[in-house]
């Protein structure tokens, strides 16, 4: 490969630091940036996620969640539905509710055609953040990256207890010693958006134009 060695570049940086004046404090106190410390996380999450353009639904238990998801799938006029292999809250009930009938439920797209023509993608989440109303998804063998991205409608299932308060809480879940984060993680805060044409808001640019979050109480 062209380019230079790591040692060469790091040496240049070290020289610059020695002759220059770049300086910073010995430590920083991140807690002063905390926005959400306590309170009703479900309420804050709902308010912020709605404000970002996501549609929030509440379900008392798994079977109610499954009925809700089945309704959403029907409203979307969906034929082909991708579902994350899982496990996630209410997954079994949802799979059961969508089986039979004329919907093709796919948990491992066999080819690109299936992946790119799906109408709805259903996933769990790894966590959610009340401060910003964000969903956090982590990729893994049971959680491919594309299910929440290619279909025009994304339905995310979230258990109440998965909501943390602040982005700083999300950050500390990555601290050394915690469960490794894997290879990919995404925070989703709203439907895919652009304002590139004279600041007109258009949704569903490259990702889903509709994001539904079903919060399961139980």
């Amino acid at each position, binding site marked *: 490969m062209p380019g230079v060695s790591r040692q060469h570049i790091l040496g240049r940086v070290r020289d610059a630091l020695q002759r*220059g004046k770049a300086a910073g404090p010995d430590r920083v106190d991140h807690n002063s940036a905390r926005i959400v410390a306590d309170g009703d996380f479900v309420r804050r999450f709902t308010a912020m996620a709605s404000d970002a353009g996501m549609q929030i639904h509440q379900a008392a238990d798994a079977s109610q969640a499954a009925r809700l998801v089945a309704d959403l799938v029907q409203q979307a006029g969906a034929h082909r539905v991708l579902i994350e292999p899982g496990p996630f809250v209410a997954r079994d009930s949802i799979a059961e509710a969508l089986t039979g009938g004329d919907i093709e439920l796919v948990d491992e797209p066999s080819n690109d055609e299936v992946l790119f023509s799906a109408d709805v993608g259903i996933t769990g989440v790894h966590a959610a953040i009340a401060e910003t109303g964000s969903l956090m998804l982590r990729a893994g*063998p049971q959680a491919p990256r594309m299910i929440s991205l290619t279909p025009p409608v994304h339905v995310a299932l979230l258990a109440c207890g998965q909501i943390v308060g602040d982005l700083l809480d999300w950050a500390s879940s990555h601290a*050394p010693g915690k469960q490794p984060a894997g290879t990919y993680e995404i925070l989703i*805060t709203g439907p895919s958006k652009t304002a*590139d044409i004279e*600041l007109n808001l258009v949704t569903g640019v490259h990702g889903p134009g509709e994001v539904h979050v079903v919060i399961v109480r139980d």
Partner: protein
Amino acid sequence: MKPGRFGEQASAAVQDQVLLRALDRATRRQHDGRKELLAELPDALGMRTLASEIRERALSRLDVLLAQLADNIEHAGGSVHWAATPEQARQIVVDIAGQAGAKLIVKSKSMLSEEIELNDALAAAGLEPVETDLGEYIVQLAGQKPSHIVGPAVHLTTGQIARLLQEKLGIDYTEDPTALTRAARAVLREKFRAADMGISGVNLAVAETGALCTVTNEGNGRFVTSRPPVYVAVMGMEKVVESMADLAVLLKLLARSATGQRSTVYTNLTMGPRGAGETDGPREFHLVIVDAGRSEILGGPFWQVLKCIRCGACLNACPVYRKVGGHAYQSVYPGPIGKLLTPLLDSLRERAELPHASSLCGACFEACPVRIDIPHLLIRMRRLLEDDRYSGHLAKMAVRMWAWMNTSQARYAASSWMGRHFLDAAATDGWCRDLPLLAANWTQYRDFPAMAETPFHKLWNQLQSDDRSQPCPE
């Protein structure tokens, strides 16, 4: 990139009524959005100060953090490449593409890739780079350069975009933004599907976890980092922070400052190639760490410009940018931060006009989420340039004369008496609009205030002797 005459470009730009309207709307909306959302924070100034400290601390330990970042990425199965110059960076990316046999390359918005002119190099190597951010795609189709760090196409109207997409994509003419977006989406979907390689920039990298963070609202960044079998991230070496908590604080400010959102829609963290058992994600993962002048800046008097997180808030706040737009700067980095970055990265002498193209009003400093004191750095840069320009005998004599005139009260009073009579004669309604000789250089572009009826030192003496006057508050 040709060094341009900012003055000429700016004069032409302010005559363009269409551009003015587009700019005014875009910058005003984003500026207002930023102010509204910052006001929500319990202590916005405190948070900006913290963000500034985080960036300063990271830069002061840049060698350690870069090494840690590289170790973590290599540990996760990624490759790290080091480029001292733009040429090296371009060649590294072209070679990665060559070895992977890639042809179609999808890109998400990257200021660094504009800076190192990566697309030209890829095209010259027979590859097809496609920009996938809608604004950037539009600009690429038009054969132009982005005019704003965050909104590359803010200078174009819907009508101009409609004609462009009609011509380039063969769609029916429509001014409906949704229909235009759908048309672009359909084309770009196929590109994502077929792409051999993805290239993105890096908004911030976290040393402690080896995570590369990119933020997009459209979702193109997700496709670019996840879909093609080969992923290449190009990063300016200053973009690294220490911890995830550092990242969290900067993310809180980035979206608020850039677009007036609490959070960007997609905050993407990539930490290596796909893991064992995963069914998607890139098989090859490359990070190209680019110096291209940054270590030079780090060792000099302008190191603080490296704190910049590219939110674009200073552009939206700047009375000059608002009127002339991004293209007048003839640089990848326009606006206040560009007036510092461009001469530093490009050439201080050839771009010497840029640090002068500012009224030093301070709106940029006020807007900056990491509190880069742009006005003071501009003055510092001017001083550096003036040291050169005014080192002749005549200039030295003029300064000595001025000093002689102003270091004695009697001489000062005499000179201001003369000045007052001269200016009063030239002024109407308190303003001189057309002064002769050397002073014409000033009044050609702006008015000069007439001097006050009573000079300050007389007023001061009057106040001192006036019994009823209050002492100045401490």
